[in-house]
């Protein structure tokens, strides 16, 4: 458990990775030069947050071991459905997303752990 400290090489790698986190997240606001986003891109970017979320989520629900799932008996599908339905029923209430996490896990865990879906 109490294994060795990282070597100098690993420490340097981690610091370089930190630099990449900083630079990639700041990339387009590092330069001070007067520059503004073209109009078409500005309109397009309103879809970026949503697209990014879906691009991260979809494979985590529909892909298992690099393959598109071929069965509907997958706990993730039912949990995601439950979460979606919950948000649409409760979107005006205080904490729809928190509720979606709780309801989704309440569907996911029994199906996944008890039925092995």
């Amino acid at each position, binding site marked *: *458990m*109490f*294994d*060795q400290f*990282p070597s100098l090489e*690993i420490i*340097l*790698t*981690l*610091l*370089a*990775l*930190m630099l*990449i*986190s*900083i630079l*990639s*997240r*700041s*990339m*387009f*606001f*590092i330069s001070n030069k007067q520059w503004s*986003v073209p109009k078409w891109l500005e*309109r*397009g*970017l*309103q*879809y*970026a*947050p*949503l*697209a*990014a*979320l*879906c*691009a*991260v*989520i*979809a494979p*985590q629900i*529909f892909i298992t071991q*690099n393959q598109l799932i071929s069965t509907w008996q997958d*706990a*993730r599908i039912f*949990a995601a459905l439950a*979460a*979606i339905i919950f*948000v649409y029923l409760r*979107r005006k209430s205080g904490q*729809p*997303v*928190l509720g*979606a*996490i709780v309801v*989704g*896990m309440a569907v*996911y*865990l029994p199906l*996944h752990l008890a039925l092995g879906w």
Partner: protein
Amino acid sequence: MKIGLHLRHNPHFKKGAKDMMSLAPGIFAWGLMTAVAMVNSGLGIWTSSLMTLTVFAGSAQLATTPLIMAHAPMWVVLATATCVNLRFVVFSIHLRPYMMHLSLKDRLFTGYLTGDLSYVLTVSKFPQASETLEGKNEQLAYLMGTNWINWLSWMSGSFIGIGLTAYIPIEWGLGFAGVLALVGMTCILVNNWLKLLGALVSSIAAIAAYALPLKLNIVVAIACAVMLCLLAESFKKPVIIDKTLHH
């Protein structure tokens, strides 16, 4: 840092923090399982801890852990992290007008702390960067409020995961809570047909392009969705103009 401290008293800081609180359990679970995965792949608790504290990017941590374990050359590790982080570069284009009144140091610091969900919450709350300095500070205070809750939930999840790795089997799938937080957030964002189209296109493209290495499917999917929605918008526009002409 100056920026975190002087914006803390802006009322929008609290609003951002409060909005992020409802996503916190998902972020916590996601950090927990990322940490468990890192320790399980043999990275060790010290290296995992240091990585958590410095890199602060779950998908990049998971992608580079096996490479570090295999003693891959440093440039391969860094190139991998860069590709996995490409979606953040897209976010930074979007965030530029919200940031440029800050000093470079504060911009870099804010950028470093801005994860997926704090970006999404902030630009959906404030679709346009404010014209006034006061407005910009409010938006930034909101962003920093989401950022601190994001950081705290991610770090607490991660360190509990590092400490309790032996007791948390990855097969339980607790990390799915993180996916559910994103699902919930997505549902909130889909408020018209064009956005539904964008969501579907992005999901399908991300699955279709899944075979691409280094999570490049994510940026491909974002690009597809943005372009298709722009195209669909341009088809929609003339209809709206027609309507106004008839009235």
